């Protein structure tokens, strides 16, 4: 009963200084029942038809996919010489995008797995959405190293497969660890996402009216029938996957950071890289979740389920991560300039701040360190338009951070004779813009064809989902009558 009373109380939020304290906003708007949740979410897929803005948005997204296909086709025919990376910046644009996209994915797993383990029920309305984001972001990330091989049809050589050449991957190299980390991450995220959707596919199957839709959703629902025994095993598997994904997500960006940290280039060879990369990943990922959730909840009318409280909580996580990232920048500078006493590190940091890419460095500080400070104000966290702009600024900052790490260090290493300057070519830019288009198109298709909010998990937040009393306590029948 206590949960019920709590919900009742939360329906009367105190109004202070003209805005509502979001911690008093319920996680689901008042008045919802199991049936209204089912209806509202499944109707987006089954009944409401396709809104016009969706076609417009998909057209934009898909045209960028065309750009991507063009850029990659030229790449396959001509070779990676069409990209701007060359000695000394053998890693440049592609790896920047790879790291950025992988980082975007991390918020999805954080929301779905870590917040699940911490019993943060507010994650129930946004976890599916952010898991989808993870999947598509990792797909985008994967394109860069695969096409950077130059012969993507041989990309399977990255895996340890017996072959007639008798050659095996170098297991002492972080690049091989990366293959393992990213492919494990993708596989498990996919399993987690799909298994999470199976009961909801069952709901769609049962509510679809067109036979073709019944067949499609019936196929992917695997014959789910909501049996208690199934639920029991299902919940265990879900919990275990959450428990496994938690260390996994931390390991993935740590391994990605070791690609750099194991190298001896100034600015890379640093022990703070793993936590620094993970914090940055979560930061940019949360920003992108908000970038997508803010318009989606308005356009699909989901404000009942993704309430101001969710937005506020995500803003707070972003602020916390922004502070960790800012702290890392300070420490990076402190190590290089004051503590390490290494002239190459010192030069690298001075070069980062005042060298040829200095503009980017200061924009990055502005985007990643100054901007999140606005999130201290509840008024700003509650203003979705300002928050939306902030999230985009933060993601630009995070992209620049990765670019800084890669380009500045590689263009000015130990030997002045090997210095250079990196400029992206038009194909670099087309590929990156193309992956953005691919990502947004996939998200649009996902929102249209799949239940973007987990219905069964949302129902579990309602107080009515917990049986009242227990037969062994004796008084349950009176409680039933009064309820």
């Amino acid at each position, binding site marked *: 009963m206590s949960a019920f009373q709590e919900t009742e109380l939360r329906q009367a939020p105190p109004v202070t200084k003209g805005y509502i304290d979001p911690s008093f906003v319920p996680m689901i708007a008042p008045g919802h029942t199991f049936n209204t949740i*089912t209806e509202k979410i499944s109707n987006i897929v089954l009944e409401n038809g396709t809104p016009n803005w969706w076609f417009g948005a998909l057209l934009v997204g898909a045209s960028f996919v065309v750009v991507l296909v063009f850029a990659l086709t030229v790449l396959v025919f001509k070779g990676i010489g069409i990209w701007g990376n060359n000695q000394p910046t053998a890693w440049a644009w592609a790896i920047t995008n790879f790291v950025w996209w992988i980082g975007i994915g991390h918020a999805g797993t954080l929301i779905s797995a870590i917040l699940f383990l911490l019993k943060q029920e507010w994650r129930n309305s946004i976890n599916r959405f952010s898991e989808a984001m993870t999947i598509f972001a990792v797909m985008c990330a994967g394109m860069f190293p695969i096409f950077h091989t130059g012969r993507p049809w041989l990309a399977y050589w990255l895996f*340890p497969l017996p072959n007639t050449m008798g050659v095996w991957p170098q297991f002492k190299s972080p690049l091989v660890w990366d293959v393992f980390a990213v492919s494990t991450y993708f*596989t498990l995220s996919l399993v987690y996402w799909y*298994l999470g959707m199976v009961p909801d596919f069952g709901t769609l199957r*049962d509510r679809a009216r067109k036979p073709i839709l019944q067949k499609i959703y019936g196929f992917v629902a695997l014959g789910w029938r909501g*049996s208690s025994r*199934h639920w029991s*095993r299902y919940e265990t598997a879900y919990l275990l996957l959450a428990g496994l994904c938690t260390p*996994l997500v931390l390991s993935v960006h740590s391994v990605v950071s070791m690609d750099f940290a194991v190298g001896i280039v100034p600015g890379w060879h640093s022990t703070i890289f793993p936590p620094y990369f993970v914090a940055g990943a979560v930061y940019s990922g949360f920003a992108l979740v908000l970038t997508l959730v803010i318009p989606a909840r308005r356009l699909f009318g989901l404000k009942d389920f993704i309430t101001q409280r969710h937005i506020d909580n995500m803003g707070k996580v972003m602020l916390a991560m922004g502070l960790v990232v800012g702290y890392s920048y300070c420490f990076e500078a402190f190590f290089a300039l004051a503590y390490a006493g290494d002239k190459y590190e010192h030069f690298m940091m001075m070069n980062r701040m005042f060298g040829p890419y200095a503009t980017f460095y200061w924009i990055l500080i502005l985007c990643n360190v100054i901007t999140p400070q606005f999130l201290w104000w509840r008024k700003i966290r509650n203003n979705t338009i300002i928050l939306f702009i902030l999230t985009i600024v933060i993601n630009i900052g995070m992209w620049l951070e990765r670019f800084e790490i890669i380009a500045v260090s590689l263009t000015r290493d130990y030997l002045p004779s090997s210095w250079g300057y990196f400029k992206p070519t038009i194909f670099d830019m087309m590929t990156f813009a193309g992956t953005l288009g691919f990502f947004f198109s996939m998200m649009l298709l996902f929102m249209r064809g799949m239940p973007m909010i987990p219905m069964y998990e949302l129902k579990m937040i309602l107080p009515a989902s917990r049986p009242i009393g227990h037969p062994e306590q004796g008084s349950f029948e009176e409680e039933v009558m009064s309820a």
Partner: protein
Amino acid sequence: MKQKKKYPIYGVMAEFDSATAIMVAAQKAHDAGYRVMEAYTPFPIEEVTEAIGFHRKDNKVALACLIGGLLGGTGGYTLASCAAGVWFPLNIAGRPFIPWPMFIPVTFESTILIAGLSAGIGMLVMNGLPSPYHPVFNVPGFSLATNDRFFLCIEARDPKYDESVVTEFLNSLNPREVTRVEG
């Protein structure tokens, strides 16, 4: 839970309105001595799972996950050691061929991968999924089991099963409806 040909009737099913009602019904059915029964709910309700007599120890998903994790970890380490130490040894400045700290990431990732797949696939296999057909789908209104209705089915395989008695018993539990489930 395999459906066998010799039972033309699968069981009798009652439909309830609320989580509390199904829990009470399942508990009473268990008290009345029925053992082979199943509840169908739109979301997991632990109390109901307990009430129909499915306890934590019957749930073997975690075991599958553990075995998968152990196999994955051993496999990952063995793979890395064999590749770097036996199949393609590279002498780099005389460093050891099998430096175990360098194999931690690969061992870790393969542990997680196989453990996760074992948990996910193990769950499906133990649940007998995918199973596109199941007799309970024949019950009119069962489609609400994925929306907001709760069902309790006492199956014909139960030793105490007698159709008229079971129907009467389920009717006494205050259900919305009681239906015979064709096999």
